């Protein structure tokens, strides 16, 4: 699961109480950084206080995976081509494509419209179809690419992300999030109200 990170900025508001008075036993273990990330050095005078401690980068929050994720992962896992199978009649996915698809769904299940309907294309790529309020999202996962087609009204919007050296599925997730948002927007541009 991709972990989002949040930066907690260095505070320039100084608390009145000394840190040594609050947690004397911890003082030796805390890493004190007196410079905020922006690089502008903060001049701290006097004794160290809680507000002087730069917390750094914390991991979290973690996106909650969609309920359907384990079901779809199992479907893909059970469709990975067995060793020695030569004719693919649509029942099998190559290991490359199957694994990429699983990683993609793990990274993006929380931003997708719902459970996908999956099948193999003629070329053996994985096609995942989603429906939402005002349209449909078709995602094609190949060995070196991910294509997203959002069909909204009469319009087809397309985005492509190529395979990269990095293992990160961030660009794919962002692409799917953008296209899903299009499906939730009326073709004339008005956004559906939240009930």
């Amino acid at each position: 699961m991709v972990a989002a990170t949040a930066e907690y900025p260095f505070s320039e508001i100084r608390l009145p109480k000394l840190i040594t008075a609050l947690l004397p036993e911890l003082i030796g273990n805390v890493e004190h950084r007196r410079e905020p990330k922006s690089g502008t050095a903060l001049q701290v005078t006097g004794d160290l206080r809680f507000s002087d401690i730069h917390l750094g980068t914390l991991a979290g929050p973690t996106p909650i995976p969609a309920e359907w994720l384990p079901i779809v992962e199992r479907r893909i896992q059970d469709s990975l081509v067995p060793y020695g199978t030569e004719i693919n009649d649509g029942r099998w996915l190559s290991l490359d494509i199957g694994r990429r698809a699983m990683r993609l769904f793990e990274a993006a299940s929380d931003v997708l419209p719902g459970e996908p309907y999956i099948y193999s294309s003629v070329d053996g790529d994985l096609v995942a179809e989603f429906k939402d309020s005002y349209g449909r999202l078709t995602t094609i996962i190949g060995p070196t690419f991910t294509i997203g087609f959002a069909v909204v009204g009469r319009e087809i919007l397309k985005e492509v992300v190529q395979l990269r050296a990095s293992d990160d599925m961030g660009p794919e997730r962002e692409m799917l999030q953008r296209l899903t948002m299009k499906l939730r927007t009326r073709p004339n541009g008005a956004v559906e109200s939240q009930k």
Partner: protein
Amino acid sequence: MALWSPKSSDPVGPNERIGRRLFDQKQLNGAQDQKPLRNVFELYHFEEKRDPGYVSVDRLGKTGIDRRVRNYVEERANFAASTFKSARQFLGWAVVSAKELQNPAQGPALSVTPSPLIATAENNEISENKYHAHVERPPHYAASRYAAYDMAMHLRTIFERSYHLEAATAQPHRAAETKSIRLQLLNWLRNKFKQI
């Protein structure tokens, strides 16, 4: 009345019925439990093997579906289904008027070109198809590395917007078997495309 026999030099008229053959494809081995989306054609119905740069269709009638033409082409479609590496079932056609392709509501115009197939010696008459045509991939997609998918998506959108489903009929030599298959297929098609 004489059988409609268009010449290959004649352009495809705007009211001609153009059918894209629908063949079944096995579901992913691990995904047999999922329900297909309603009112949606799978993308593979509009893809061609080895991407020749065009998509094959049948001309099914001059202004409506011509029964005799349809029966002639259906024989060829059933034969084609048996020639796949792993045999498939011919389900029928998704049919639109040629003008829907030539002048679509959205996206590039598609040109439908007659391309009759001549009988080969080994397969004799069944490999002939006087009503075969190509939907050419427009230059609009030439720059794309994924032109085959662009084309399939465009075609699917057009066919879904204004389609008529022409289901396959039973084959006489497999009457008992195909009767139930046909019913199953008709039900499958009806359920799949029933308006919600």
